[in-house]
Each structure stands twice: as C-alpha cells, then as structure tokens.
C-alpha cells in the first residue's frame, strides 16, 4: 500500500468520529420527529456517496469500452461493489426511519422506489460479473454498466411522475433545511466520501493481487501440463 493509505485511514477515522458526534449530539433536535430524525445524517450521505460511485462506474465502463485497459475494469468493479454497499445502507436506514415516524416499514414513495430499482440494477451488474467467466466478463459488464447508468435518469423521472399522480407518504422529507443541520449533513458526507475512497482503494489493491495470483496459477498449470 502506498504511503497515502495510512494517512487516509487516520483522516477517515477522525472525520467519522467527529461526524458521528455532530450527528448524535451536536446537531439540533428536529421539532416534529425528535431524535429519530438524526438517522437522516447517515441515510442521505450514503445515497449521495452511492450515486457518485455509480457515476464513477459509468465513466470506468466507458473508459474500458474505449481503451480496454484492465485498470478501468477494476475501477468499474470496485465502484459498483462499494456503491451497492452504501446504497444498501441507505435502503436499510430508510425503513428504520420510516417505521417510528410514519408507522410503516416500507412505502412505494418516489425516493425509496427509485433507490430500490437502482440497487437492483447494480446488483444485477455484480451478478453478471460473478456468472461470466474470465475473459469476457469485463466487456460484458462494461456494456451493462453503460446501459444501467443510462437507465437511472429514466428510473427517477418515471417514478417521480408516477408518484405525483398517485401520491403516497414521502420518506426523507422535503422542505428547507436548518443551516446547522446542513452543516452536519455535509460533514457526514465528507466522512463517508473518505470511507468510500479508503474502501475502494483496498478493494482495488485486492483485485489487482487476485488477478496476479490467478494469472500465475494458470501459468503454472500450463507449465505443468506441458511436462
């Protein structure tokens, strides 16, 4: 691991701790929902981080289709995996927030539904990777990455329109934000971005090592076969 890694790890740990403190204690208590609203500080930045990672996946997929560099493929794989992790956090914290506030675990509201579909798209991307064998997996996955990313605006737009026609309770609330809350939100987002970067870096190195080992193993079996 390069020298930057330990520094990033420390920064991440510090930021996360500070952000956690701010979210649980520092931030003002919301008037109508009470302390449960603090879930917001984890729920929203997780989604934003996931979106960013999926955007990276889109770029990496295109880069791979154009240049065919293995590094681009590994970036695509990494960003999709870590993106799914963050989006899973969002999808889990959503219902946990919804239950005490609105009394329901799930509702097909705009944000939750769109996020669920996006999650399904990228999980199918990861499944494609898992089910396709070595050589072609990067190309096939890159194609799916592009199509999936193109689909995302359609998903959000179509479900938004559907929900304006058939309104249902909105999770995550709209309306304006107290500037102190916005401040805490951004701190948590910064912490999550550092965490994402850290995890992606780790996953990237892991994948590089894995591919080296696989290459060495196939070379070895080739040599043994020729003896």
């Amino acid at each position, binding site marked *: 691991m390069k020298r930057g890694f330990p520094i990033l790890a420390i920064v991440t740990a510090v930021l996360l701790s500070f952000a956690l403190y701010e979210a649980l204690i520092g931030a003002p208590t919301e008037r109508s929902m009470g302390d449960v609203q603090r879930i917001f500080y984890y729920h929203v930045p997780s989604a934003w981080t996931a979106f960013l990672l999926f955007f990276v996946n889109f770029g990496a997929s295109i880069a791979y*289709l154009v240049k065919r560099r293995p590094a681009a493929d590994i970036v695509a794989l990494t960003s999709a995996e870590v993106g799914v992790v963050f989006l899973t956090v969002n999808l889990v914290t959503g219902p946990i927030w919804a239950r005490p506030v609105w009394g329901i675990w799930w509702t097909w509201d705009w944000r939750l539904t769109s996020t669920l*579909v996006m999650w*399904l*798209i990228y*999980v*199918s991307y990861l*499944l*494609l990777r898992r*089910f*396709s*064998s070595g*050589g*072609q997996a990067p*190309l*096939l996955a890159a*194609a*799916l990455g*592009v*199509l*999936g990313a*193109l*689909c995302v605006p*359609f*998903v959000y*737009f*179509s*479900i938004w*329109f*559907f929900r304006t*026609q058939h309104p249902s309770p909105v999770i995550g609330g709209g309306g304006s934000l107290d500037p102190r809350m916005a401040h805490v939100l951004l701190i948590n987002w910064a912490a999550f971005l550092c965490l994402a970067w850290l995890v992606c870096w780790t996953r990237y190195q892991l994948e590089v090592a894995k591919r080296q080992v696989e290459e060495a193993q196939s070379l070895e079996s080739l040599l043994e076969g020729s003896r």
Partner: protein
Amino acid sequence: MSFLAVVRATLAKDLRLEWRSKDAINAMLFFSLLVVVIFSFAFEPTAEESRKIAGGLVWVAFLFAAIVVLNQTWARELRNHVLDAYRMSPASANSLFLAKAFGNFIFVIVLEALMTPLFIAFYRLGAIGPAWELLPIATLGTWALVVNGTFFAAISLRTRSREVMLPLLLFPISVPALLGMVNATTAVLTGEESARFWITLLVAYDVVFTIACLLLFETILEAE
C-alpha cells in the same frame, strides 16, 4: 450486401425456420393460454376493478411470454456455430442484431395479439379512453422489452445459468419502460388520465436504448 438487405435476409431466414418447425410458436401459444388461465385464478375482479388492474396483469403476462421468446433467440445460432461465421463475415454485427430484434418483436406481438382477446373475455375488459392508443403503446412497449432483451440474451450466452441471467438483467433495466406500458394501458382502459406522458416516456426510452444497444452490440459479439 447492403445493411438492410442483410437484415431482411436474416429475418426472413429466422421466420422461415420458425414457420417450418413451429417449435417456438407452439410453446408460446400454449404458454400464453396457461398464463391467462392462471392469472384468472389469482384475480377475479369485477369489470370496474378489472380496468384498474388489467394494465399491470396484461403486461406482466406479456413480459413472461417475452422471456420465453427471448431465451431461445440465440439458441439455434449457438447450436450451429453460426455466431462464429457471423464474426468472420463482412456483414455488420448490427444487421444481425436488428434482424434478431425484429424477429423477436414479431413473435411477441403475435403472442400479444393471441392473448389479448383471451384477457378481454376472461376479465370483461373494455376501454373507456381512446382504445386506438393501445396500438402505439403495445408497439413501443414491446419494442422496449425486445430490444433490451435481445441484447441481454446475447450477453447471457457467455454466462453460466444462461436462462436465469436474462430475466435477472432485463427486469431492473426495464422498470421505467414497464411503468410506462402499465400506466399508459391503465390510463387508456380507465379513461381517468391521459396516457400522453407515458407514451412520450416510452418513445424516449426506446430511442435511447435502441441507439445504445446498436452502439454496443458489435463489442458484445466480438467478446471472446
């Protein structure tokens, strides 16, 4: 041969082969009847309720029928190593893709045409809104499923669990189109809303994904 000539020739070949063996058509016919019957066990709505849910029911049934069609898209090619021949021929990969997509489109439209009277009879359906709109809705919706389905069928060829992979990949990406098809159909049947937004959405979806699939298909075909 020109691009369109290749498309036409490939399409004609597929249709002719299918007409002679009637493999897929028989399976699809029986399948569509089964689906309609099973759905009628699951739901027994009044005529009023029918109109509200028929949109969803019908398109779920069509979706499953489309999967059956799509899964066998490349089966014949695979058995006879036709894809390798195609890779070596000067014919553009897109002509193969379009021929396959049009072929699938025709099969699914035929299926829909067969299933629709059954649905109308079983659910006592009648459109309150402008019924003619159902034609562009069916066309756009079916094309949305088929264009992506043909593409993902080609991708699934190189995966383990081929038949499972296709719906796994197709369903999430098709969500906006499905939303469009179902809501447009419901809007026409109930006459309560205008289907215009959903039809426009389907047009946009079809355009974007047809172009994207055409741009990417050659890469998929070459993938070795």
